[in-house]
C-alpha cells in the first residue's frame, strides 16, 4: 500500500470506471495520447483505445454538446475541461441542455455525464487557469456538484460520479493534485457522494471548506489549537446538494461558523451556508457566519495570488472575530 497522489487516485478511479462499464467514455482536449495536461488520463488511451478515450476538437461547447448526444444514445461520457476558465464556452450546453434534458423529457432521457474541471488557484498559472466557477454550477438546478479534497475521496467520488445517473460537475482541486495519501484502492466502503465529512472534530467553532481549502482549514485548526481554541473542520465534499445536516449538527454544538473558499464571496457557497445555517441554527448561533473567500475581483496575476487566496492568517483572523462575538 503506497502513498497515492490525488492525480493518481483519479487516474485509478477512471480506469476502474472504464473497466466496469463499456459505455463509459473519456473525452476532451489532449486526454488521449498526452494523457491530459495534468496526466489524469495517463495510459487510458493506450489501454482502452481511441474510441473510448477520445481526443476532441478544440471546442468546449462541442465536447459537452456531443457528450449530451452520447448520453442520449446510452453512453456515460466523462468530459475533461482543460482548465476552469475554459468551462464558460460550454456554459449553455451545461446549463440549458445537460442540466435540463431529464426534466425536459420527463425522465425519459437520463444524462449520466461527468464534467471534470480542474479548478482553483495556487499553481502560479497565467490568466483563466486558476478560477473557481463552482457557484455558477451549484446555482444551476439539475446538476450535481462535488469536489474531493483527498486522494481516497478522489478515487471513490469519481467512480460514484460516473455511476450516477445525473450530470455531475466534478471539480478537481488542481493545487492538491500532488498531495499524497495512503489508501487501499478498492478496499473499504466509500462515504455517500453527497455527504460532508468531519475532517477534524472540535468544540468552539466550525470551519467549513471543500476542495483546495480543506487543507487551509485543517492548518488553521491546528494553529487555533495552539492558541487553545478547538475548531471543528468539515470537508463539504459536495456543493449541490449541500449536506447542511452535517454542518448544522456541528454548528448546533459550536455556535460559530466560518466558511472558507477560493471562489469570490459575493453570492458564493459561503453565502448559501450563512443563509441556510442561519435559518436552521438561528438560536444556537453565537456569532454571524463569517466568510473567508476570494475577493470579488478577477483572479489576479500569479505573483499576487497568495494575497488573493484564503490562507491560514485570514482564516485564523476570522476565527478570532467569530470567537469575539
Amino acid at each position, binding site marked *: 500500500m503506497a502513498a497515492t497522489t490525488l492525480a493518481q487516485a483519479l487516474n485509478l478511479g477512471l480506469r476502474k470506471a472504464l473497466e466496469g462499464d463499456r459505455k463509459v467514455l473519456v473525452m476532451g482536449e489532449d486526454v488521449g495520447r498526452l494523457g491530459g495536461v495534468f496526466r489524469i488520463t495517463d495510459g487510458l488511451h493506450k489501454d482502452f483505445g481511441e474510441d473510448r478515450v477520445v481526443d476532441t476538437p478544440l471546442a468546449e461547447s462541442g465536447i459537452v*454538446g456531443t457528450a449530451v*448526444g452520447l448520453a442520449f444514445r446510452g453512453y456515460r461520457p466523462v468530459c475533461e475541461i482543460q482548465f476552469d476558465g475554459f468551462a464558460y464556452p460550454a456554459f449553455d450546453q451545461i446549463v440549458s441542455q445537460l442540466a435540463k434534458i431529464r426534466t*425536459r423529457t420527463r425522465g425519459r432521457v437520463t444524462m449520466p455525464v461527468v464534467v471534470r474541471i480542474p479548478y482553483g488557484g495556487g499553481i502560479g498559472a497565467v490568466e483563466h487557469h486558476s478560477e473557481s466557477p463552482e457557484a455558477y454550477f451549484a446555482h444551476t438546478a439539475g446538476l450535481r456538484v462535488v469536489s474531493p479534497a483527498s486522494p481516497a475521496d478522489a478515487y471513490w467520488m469519481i467512480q460514484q460520479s460516473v455511476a450516477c445517473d445525473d450530470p455531475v460537475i466534478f471539480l478537481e482541486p488542481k493545487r492538491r493534485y500532488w498531495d499524497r495519501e495512503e489508501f487501499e484502492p478498492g478496499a473499504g466502503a466509500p462515504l455517500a457522494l453527497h455527504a460532508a465529512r468531519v475532517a477534524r472534530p472540535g468544540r468552539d467553532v466550525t470551519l467549513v471548506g471543500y476542495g483546495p481549502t480543506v487543507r487551509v482549514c485543517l492548518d488553521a485548526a491546528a494553529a487555533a489549537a495552539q492558541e487553545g481554541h478547538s475548531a471543528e473542520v468539515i470537508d463539504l465534499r459536495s456543493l449541490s446538494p*449541500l449536506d447542511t445536516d452535517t454542518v448544522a449538527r456541528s454548528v448546533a454544538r459550536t455556535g460559530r461558523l466560518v466558511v472558507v473558499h477560493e471562489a469570490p464571496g459575493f453570492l458564493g457557497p459561503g453565502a448559501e451556508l450563512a443563509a441556510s445555517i442561519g435559518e436552521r441554527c438561528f438560536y444556537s448561533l453565537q456569532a454571524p457566519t463569517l466568510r473567508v473567500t476570494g475577493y470579488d475581483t478577477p483572479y489576479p496575476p500569479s505573483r499576487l495570488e497568495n494575497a488573493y487566496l484564503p490562507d491560514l492568517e485570514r482564516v485564523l483572523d476570522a476565527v478570532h472575530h467569530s470567537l469575539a462575538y
Partner: protein
Amino acid sequence: MRLLDAEGHRVEDPRWALDLSAEEERSLYRDMVLVRRFDAEATTLQRQGELGLWASLLGQEAAQIGAGRALDLRDFVFSSYREHGIAWCRGVDPVGMLGFWRGTAHGCWDPYHAGMANYQVVVGGHALHGVGYALGMQRDGADGAVLVCFGDGATSQGDVNEAFTFASVYGAPVVFYCQNNQWAISEPLERQTRVPLYRRALGFGFPGIQVDGNDVLACLAVARGALEHARSGAGPVLIEAVTYRMAPHTTSDDATRYRSADEAEEWAAKDPVARMRAYLERTGRADAGFFKEVDEEAETLALRVRGGCRAMPDPPPTAIFDHVYAGPHTLLDAQREEFTAFQAQFEDAP
C-alpha cells in the same frame, strides 16, 4: 436540385433517381395536406387561448415531409421547434405535440419511441446532440443515421459550426438538414450569410447540396441519398432546403412589420402542396375522389386535435419537482415536501 418544377412538371435528374409508385406519391401529398391542416388548427387553438404559442410550418410541408419520409426506424432525429411535419412522419401524435405549446410539458413525446428528440428551443443547441448521438451509433456499429434539422438563422450559431467540425473530423453518420425559409424572425437571409448555405459544408470538408425545399420529391430523394451516404460510413452531409416561411415567425409575430406582401405572393405561387397536387392531377395519379378523401381526413384530424387539445389536463403542481434528478436530492426533496404541505393548507380551506 429539383424533380418537380413550379408548375408540377416532373424533371429528371440522373443523379437523383426516384422511383415511387403512384400510391407513394399520393401519400406524400396526403401527409402534406394533413400537417398543413393540423398546423392551421394549432394556429386557431392559439388564437382561442388554448395554446400559449404556435410556430407554424406553413410553406415548409414539402421540406419536412420529404425529409421525414426518407427516414426509417434505424434513424434518429434532433429538431428545432418548427418540425411538426418531421414529428408527424416519426409517428408522433399531433395532439401530443401540442402539450409543449399549451404549456403542460417541455417535452411531450417519448424520444426513444419516436426516434426523435423533443423540440429544441435554443437555436442550434441540438446540432451537437445529433453529432454525439451519431458518434454513439458509430460505436455501437448501428447502421442508422441522425437527421439534425435547423433553420437558416441557426447556421450563425457557434454550436452549429462546432457540430460541423465534430461530425467532419469523426466522419459521423449525420445529415444536417437546414430549412432555409428565408427568415429568422424579422431578419432576412442576408443577415446570416452572403453565400448559399449549403456551401458552408465544403469549408468543413464534407458535401453540401441545395435542394428546392418546396418540391417534396426532390427533398425526399436528396434526404434519402444523404442518409444512405451517412449510414454507409462516408460521413456527414449538409442539405439546404430552400423554402419559405409563409406564416409569421410564431403566433406572437407580426410579419407585416418587416416583409412585403409582394414577397409573400411570389412564394405563394410556389406553394409546395399545390405543386404536388398539380403533378398528381396532371399525371392522373390521383383523381378528384382522392383529393376529397384527403380533405375529409384533414377535417377529421383537425376535429380530433381540437378535442384532444381542449381535453389536455394541466399537470399537478408537484410535477415541478419531478424528473429533475434521477436519484434523491436532499434540497429538492425538502422543497417538494414543503411545497406539498403549503398547498395542502389551501386545499383544506373552505
